[in-house]
């Protein structure tokens, strides 16, 4: 194994490459500020669960009115509050309708019956749509039951969870961590091998007995460290500038980040073994970046996307890392709810790094 010499060489080279180092910390900071103060949209078909404690024709009418707004898709029924909280924390549902036991009785007696709409506001774009949709559904039922009555016979109380202030930055910043890590890690490694090829140093290196694994890992490990630094910088800046909370465990976050960064480095290295020039590597990198921004759920909620777009999103490591980031930072959930994301990211990492080792050939043809 020649891993240590390879690592030593890469670190010495990186230390001299002040420009790259500055870019890798500077770009995230700039992007964070730019993105943090921007971005918005409309949402349909939010997965919604219903806790119908009333179980009456009147409560079912409210559910169908809610469905008719188009903002919600009823994906399940729960039987208690704990189950409801689980569904939202786990990300199965983004909203929940709670109809209390005396809903029908209140209406019969002419009192204001109130239903509760709980919205996962960790995603402000989705939740603002949910809130207005819920309010419309409530008003529609009230109008149907007793037009013009004051106060309205049905009222919908909306409770945003996780992000009570409904601030976009809280939602955007975790996303930025994921997108920037993906961008910088893939771009920097996609040129790593092809640059040595272009400069002629690869020819001299592969004529030695150095093993492929050392060569690939030597290129990978230094950037893993840089990735962690990058993520930490954005976390701290997000906290200082935008009050982005860290509700869950940082250890879980860094564990997920480890798998995610390695997956991206692996992908970059794999690209590097496929392209013939640094220019091609950059182009391929940017090609990869677009679906990451558009389809991972970074800017637009994935539930609102056509099926094909959702499939593509499901093939991106970023999609799973975003769920993890938002889960840990905003919802405070841990590995028991994020183990699936962790496993998928780990699988991405193992497959991509192995593929780049296999793909890399110690020849110059």
């Amino acid at each position: 194994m020649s891993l240590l010499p390879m690592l030593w060489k890469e670190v010495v080279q990186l230390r001299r490459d002040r420009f790259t180092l500055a870019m890798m910390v500077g770009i995230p900071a700039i992007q964070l500020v730019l993105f943090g103060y921007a971005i918005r949209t409309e949402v349909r078909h939010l997965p919604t669960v219903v806790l119908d404690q009333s179980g009456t024709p009147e409560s079912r009418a409210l559910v169908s009115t809610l469905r008719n707004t188009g903002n919600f898709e009823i994906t399940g029924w729960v039987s208690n509050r704990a189950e409801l909280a689980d569904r939202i924390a786990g990300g199965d549902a983004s909203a929940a309708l709670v109809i209390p036991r005396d809903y029908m009785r209140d209406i019969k007696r002419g009192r204001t019956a109130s239903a509760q709409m709980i919205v996962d506001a960790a995603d402000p774009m989705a939740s603002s749509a949910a809130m207005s949709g819920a309010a419309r559904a409530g008003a529609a039922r009230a109008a149907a039951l007793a037009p013009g009555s004051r106060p309205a016979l049905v009222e919908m109380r909306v409770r945003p969870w996780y992000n009570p202030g409904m601030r976009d930055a809280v939602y955007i910043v975790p996303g930025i961590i994921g997108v920037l890590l993906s961008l910088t890690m893939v771009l920097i490694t996609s040129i790593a091998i092809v640059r040595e090829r272009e400069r002629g140093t690869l020819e001299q290196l592969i004529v030695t007995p150095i093993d492929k694994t050392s060569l690939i890992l030597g290129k990978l490990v230094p950037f893993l460290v840089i990735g962690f630094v990058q993520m930490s910088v954005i976390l701290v800046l997000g906290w200082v500038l935008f009050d982005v909370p860290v509700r869950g465990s940082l250890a879980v976050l860094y564990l997920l980040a480890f798998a995610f960064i390695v997956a991206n480095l692996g992908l970059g290295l794999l690209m590097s073994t496929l392209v013939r020039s640094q220019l091609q590597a950059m182009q391929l990198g940017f090609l990869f970046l677009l679906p990451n921004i558009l389809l991972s759920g970074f800017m637009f909620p994935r539930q609102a996307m056509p099926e094909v777009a959702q499939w593509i999103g499901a093939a991106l490591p970023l999609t799973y890392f975003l769920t993890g980031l938002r889960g840990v930072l905003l919802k405070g959930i841990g590995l028991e709810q994020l183990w699936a994301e962790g496993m998928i990211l780990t699988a991405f990492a193992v497959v991509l790094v192995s593929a780049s080792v296999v793909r890399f050939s110690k020849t110059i043809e």
Partner: protein
Amino acid sequence: MTDNAVAWEAVNVRGLRKVFGPRVAVENLDLSIRTGEVFGLLGPNGSGKTTTIRMLCGLMTPTAGSASVVGFDVIASPEQVRRRIGYMSQRFGLYDDLTVAENMRFYASVYGLRGDARRRRVEEQLAELGLEERAGQLAGTMSGGWKQRLALACATTHRPAMLFLDEPTAGVDPASRRLLWQWIYNLAKQGTTILVTTHYMDEAERCERLAFLSRGHLIAVGTVKEVLTHFNQPTIEDVFIELQRRDEGAIV
């Protein structure tokens, strides 16, 4: 390296062929180089010299034919070959952004030297090649001659049994050229087999045996005297010019 024939032969090439798409770079090449020999590979640009060397070093896979280097088959056991050879590519292949000593240290480590042994070897080579004063200089800031000294140091750090030099003196000043050749002879004297390509006729004449390649074909092998007789020319330079003329004639 058990049998004598193998020990006696550093390179044995049979029917070696390499094509790039429609272009034939090397065609049906047979070649045998004795252990300890300084062997010159000559020919105009594009005659297949570099491709041949690259195949012998395991950097390119032959389209057909076989080749063994220092007793190992280059296709079946390229890593065994790599461990025992040194290679200086035509283009400077070391790291411009590492210093002279860092480049040497890196290559010494890649060949498995560690700790004290590595430090001693780097110091020894710095002294041998007169690079001591430049140990801390970035390789990219040196001139051609110094770069080639460094490249030679890195290619021989593991004391290879065989050294491949692809135009080691191209773009190098006459003083450095003379020095490089001195080192090449020293290595040969210590038993290192050397395969060198060159465009300089005085260098060609220093080789014990020569092979001429023309458009991928081997057209003559032998001592300088034998080659001169074969082509009926007074100097190696005339042989070269005659070959180039034939090549161009063939194209027209």
